[in-house]
Each structure stands twice: as structure tokens, then as C-alpha cells.
């Protein structure tokens, strides 16, 4: 079971991570696109996923990743990501709902370059209970 006391909490912003053209090219190539070009609309998951590791690693939160299924994902982009952007991620625990012994966790991550919002990313995980 997840610790519902975490709802409404915000993790400290991650240290800036500078986007390289090589990482954008690798992401594009993996999706079968030409290496040259802008970051795909789903690229920021490579930043938001590690930003959430601190929740996975926190024993008080109780998130067992071997029981997790990705249920929903949403991106709202204020502008495209470009190589050279120094991006920070601020993860908010938006909601935890318990349904028939399973937990449904939604996080919202604000991705910013300095003071400028680049994207808002929502991730909803289904966490299988013991039953």
C-alpha cells in the first residue's frame, strides 16, 4: 500500500540536466525516426522517470516497482525541447486512489528551463495490491 500522507507533497527540483543532441537522436532512432530533428513529444519521459526514482527509493512511500503497470500518460508542452536546454523536474504527488486493494498513483512533473515552464507531464501508475 502506498503512503497516502504523501498526497500533495512536492519533491525538491532535480539538478539541471542539459539535453544533448545525441540523446534526442537516440530517442528518435529508437522510435524508427531519422536521427536529425526535434525531440519527440514523449521525449521528456527520459527526464521525468528518473526524477520520480526518489519516490521509488523512499521506503516510507511504499512503492514496489515490480507491481507497477503504467496506466496513463499526458504531456502538455509550452514549447519544444531543444538541445542545450538545462531542464529541471519538480515532481508533485497529485493523487493516490485505492480501488479494491490496488493503488492508483498520479504524479505531475513540472519541467522547466530556469524560470521558464517547458512542459507539464502527468503519469498515472497502477500498483497491484497483495490480494
Amino acid at each position, binding site marked *: 500500500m502506498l503512503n497516502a500522507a504523501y498526497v500533495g507533497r512536492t519533491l525538491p527540483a532535480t539538478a539541471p540536466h542539459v539535453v544533448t543532441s545525441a540523446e534526442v537522436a*537516440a530517442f528518435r532512432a529508437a522510435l524508427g525516426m531519422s536521427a536529425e530533428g526535434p525531440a519527440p513529444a514523449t521525449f521528456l519521459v527520459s527526464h521525468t522517470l528518473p526524477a520520480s526514482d526518489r519516490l521509488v527509493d523512499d521506503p516510507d512511500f511504499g512503492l514496489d516497482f515490480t507491481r507497477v503497470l503504467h496506466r*496513463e500518460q*499526458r504531456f502538455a508542452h509550452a514549447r519544444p525541447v531543444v538541445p542545450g536546454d538545462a531542464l529541471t523536474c519538480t515532481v508533485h504527488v497529485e493523487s493516490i486512489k485505492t480501488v479494491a486493494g490496488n493503488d492508483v498513483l498520479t504524479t505531475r512533473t513540472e519541467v522547466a528551463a530556469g524560470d521558464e515552464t517547458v512542459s507539464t507531464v502527468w503519469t498515472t501508475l497502477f500498483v497491484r495490491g497483495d490480494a
Partner: protein
Amino acid sequence: MIIDTAYTITRADLVAYANASGDQNPIHQDELAAKAAGLPDVIAHGMYTMGLGARALTAWAGSEDAILEYTVRFAKPVVVPAEGGAEVRITGEIRKELEDGLVEVNLTVTCGGEKVLAPARATVRKP
């Protein structure tokens, strides 16, 4: 219908995607790990299939940064066999015309006739 396309996902794609995205969950690469998790075989990252949807949307829009908003629900996993991979079919239609040259697009994403992303919706700058 504005989009009607299909992509094949192979195990090699999933390894490349795991490295590019940082999602190294073994259920996306290793049959034993997938079966231990109660799955029939290796499954694609949901985000891989979502990424293919974005690829189809931007191919239609004629601009690779045309997606402003993109939301999906992962309805069923895409099982990727070692031989031949899995074919994902993507169709799309305009659901609503918005202001400023934007449209809301509904995608239908299936594998083996079953919906794998449902719903899948995006706000896109029109071509």
C-alpha cells in the same frame, strides 16, 4: 480519416528504446522476467507505443514539433515475440477544430485487432 499507418516493433527496438529512455525494466527485454511478472511474453514499453502515435501524428502534421498536448491510457500491453515482432496499426481522425490552427485528434491504436491505447488524444497544429 487523416492517419492510417502501421509500424512493426521488434525486440531490438525495445532494447534501443530502453537505452534511450532509461527505462530498463526487464519485462521489456527478457522473456523470463516478463513471465515471472505474469505476462505471456516480453511487452513493449507503453511509452514506446505512445511514441509511435506521436510519430504518426507529426508525419501527418508535416512538422515534428506540432504536438502541444498528448494524452493516452494504456489499455492492453503489446506483446512482442522474439521472431518477427509485433505490428501496431494507428488510425486517426479529427475530433474537433480548435482556434489558432489547432485540432484535436483521436487516435485508434491496435495490435492484433485489440485496442492497446484507448483513449489516445492529441492537440496538434494542422498542416
